[in-house]
């Protein structure tokens, strides 16, 4: 396998010290940067930000005080972008299924094959990168659209919906010329060349941006 170029990071959170260490040892054998935490509290005390290169969390589903499931719930509440992989013991499949429904990437039942574990890590990190990219593009689109004046935003939305200058003018009770000027400003500010491109930009900023 190709070791990741930069530094995505894998956090292992498990109260069972020897097992946690063996996972870190395994991750490091495969070239990952791993970081261990002996409890959910420990992790929550200073929740690390997801690096641009991605990363993921490996959680023991059963831990004293704050369990893996509880940690997942709290992270969701914080809008955390970290993908989560659960490690379960014998007989915790019910819990694991619930965790999957709540958005976990996968769960692995002990004992598991190292390759299966590393593949899952790979997948989770990839997912985190996609998520990071998507959110970055969304932020960019929002910044571009934020440059428009309110009137220009109205014109931009109608352009993206495929209306002609005439129709826009009638809609907003302004002259065709004015529409034309606004259109020029919109294209300049957003750096788009066509109505279709403008539509894509708006949708990237907000998937519901073109709804009535």
């Amino acid at each position: 396998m190709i070791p990741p170029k930069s530094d995505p990071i894998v956090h292992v959170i498990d109260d069972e010290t020897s097992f946690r260490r063996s996972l870190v040892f395994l991750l490091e054998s495969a070239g990952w940067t791993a970081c261990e935490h002996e409890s959910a509290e420990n992790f929550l005390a200073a929740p690390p930000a997801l690096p641009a290169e991605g990363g993921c969390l490996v959680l023991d589903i059963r831990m004293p005080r704050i369990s893996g499931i509880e940690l997942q719930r709290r992270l969701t509440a914080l809008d955390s972008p970290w993908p989560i992989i659960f490690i379960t013991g014998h007989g915790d499949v019910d819990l694991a299924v619930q965790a999957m429904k709540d958005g976990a990437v996968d769960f692995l039942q002990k004992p598991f094959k190292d390759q299966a574990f590393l593949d899952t890590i790979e997948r989770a990190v990839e997912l985190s990168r996609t998520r990071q990219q998507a959110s970055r593009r969304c932020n960019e689109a929002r910044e571009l659209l934020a440059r428009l004046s309110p009137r220009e935003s109205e014109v931009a939305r109608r352009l993206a919906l495929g209306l002609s200058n005439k129709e826009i003018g009638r809609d907003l009770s302004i002259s065709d010329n004015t529409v034309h000027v606004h259109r020029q400003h919109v294209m300049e500010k957003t750096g788009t060349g066509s109505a279709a491109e403008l539509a894509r930009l708006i949708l990237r900023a907000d998937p519901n941006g073109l709804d009535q």
Partner: protein
Amino acid sequence: MDARSSTFVRLCVLLLAWCPTLVGASELRIGVLAWFGDRTAAAQWQALGAALQARLPATTVSMAYHDMDGLENALAAGELDFIITNPGHYVVLEARHRATRIATQRIDPSHDSEHAVGSAVIVPSERTDLRTLDDLRGKRIAATVPDGFSGWLTVWAELKRRGIDPEREEVTPLFAGLPMSRVLDSLDRGEVDAGILRVCLLEHLVRQGRLLEGRYRVLSPQEPDAPCRRSTPTYPGWAFAAAAGTPDALARATLVALLSLDGSDDVLRWGVPADYHPVHAMLRELQVAPYEFLREHSLEAQILRYWPIGAILLAVLLMWLIYTLRVEVLVQRRTRELSAALAAHHEIEERMKTQRQKMDHLSRLSILGELSGTLAHELNQPLATIGNYARSLTRRMWSGKLSDDAVAQAAHEIAGQAERAAGILEGIRDFARKRVRQREDCDAAKLVGEIVALFRGMLAKAPEIRINDKLPEERRNIHVDRLQIQQVLLNLLKNAYDAHCAIDQAGLPIDIVLEPAGERTCIAVRDHGPGLASEDQARLFEPFFTTKSDGMGLGLSICKSIIEAHAGQLVAVQPDDGPGLCFSFTLPSAVSARHDPT
């Protein structure tokens, strides 16, 4: 008395007004004691029948007349709802057929009633030698019939009280039969010295002119001011009694009807049921029905008392002879039987011992079975860790990144985890191994510590187990079968843990207390779970009783027998200071065990 009974009548009438009688179109069958055949009795009692019929229009009132046996038979056959009979006979029927009096005939003392209950013993006036009942010793006395109440029994009782027993022939009764006038005939013929009449009969006959005033004299007259002279106490009047099967409603309705009757005729005068204890006392004294059974005992006593002593001596001699002959034979036979019984006893004991060992073994396996789920989980942990290190090493080797440090770290971890797994298995094997029971002195706290370690080793996330050791230095040792006691403790710990798991609080602590209890040592295991319903608590130690879906219900019953084998008791109590359940038991201390051969 009158005021009270009329209040009672009013109360009854009021009560019954609330519940319309259930008597409906039923039949009310009354049996009456009659000495002289139907016709005489019917003439006497028909007024009562008619009056009741008038009060209970919805009911058909019928009267039947019987002698004593006939009345009893009819009552036993269920042919009667009610009976009217004399006090003595009533007491008999009450005892034999559960007849219940609902009313007693009221006798006006100023009235020479047909039914006054008591007797007068009369003698011809010229017999000046006879003054009191005591003078009747050795004399002959005319009575009606042997079971006549005022015709014989009352006088018999009175004579007996005065130490004159007809049964010891200290006075000779002559039964003239009924009607009572035959007693007078007997007296007139000179066959007897005295005669017994129902109280007031003498006065009645005089008033009717059938007898000359002063012809007869009453012996030992009581209450000289009373209108009728009598020689005995008076007893409660005739009883109106319900048969055992008579419905309450019918009895109530009849009672109300009876109490509300009025008229001058004796048969219409009924009051609240009287106390028949004097009658009971009298019949018991005489040892006649229903107390005839008393007679059997005293008969035996008599036989014993009067048995010719010579015969007894002879019998004793004979028996002694036979006895000496038989003794030798018996001794030999008994010796054989005894040794056979001893052998059988030993065999049974041996078998029970083997059985108990098998049972112990089984129960240990059963606990292990119940723990095996968590055991598998626990072994998973070191195995998964070992697997991770081994594969990591391979991976590093192929990628050329295998450092000495990594090898050392991985090898160290692998060895440690292997030891951990082996430790878990070793504990289990020791525990499951079959063995012969043996008692030894051991340190109580150490024994508890070992089993706590084993228990914690079996669980992935063992809860905190707090040991409170209050044993003084000189009392540390107990004299027990170590493995058996560990089995009990393991069972109790597992129960405590299960109780916590049942409320999803597996992390709650378990408390163990060690303390002296007199000569013995007490160990208590307490959980903080939901406790136990009291009906479950009562059945807790029954074999195969369980509240767990996966339990066999053998654990506690075996623990109980183990503790009992150590002369202790396993008890479960609800702690005062919060939820949970506390199991405690006592064990022989090493000191006290020296006095105790078990």
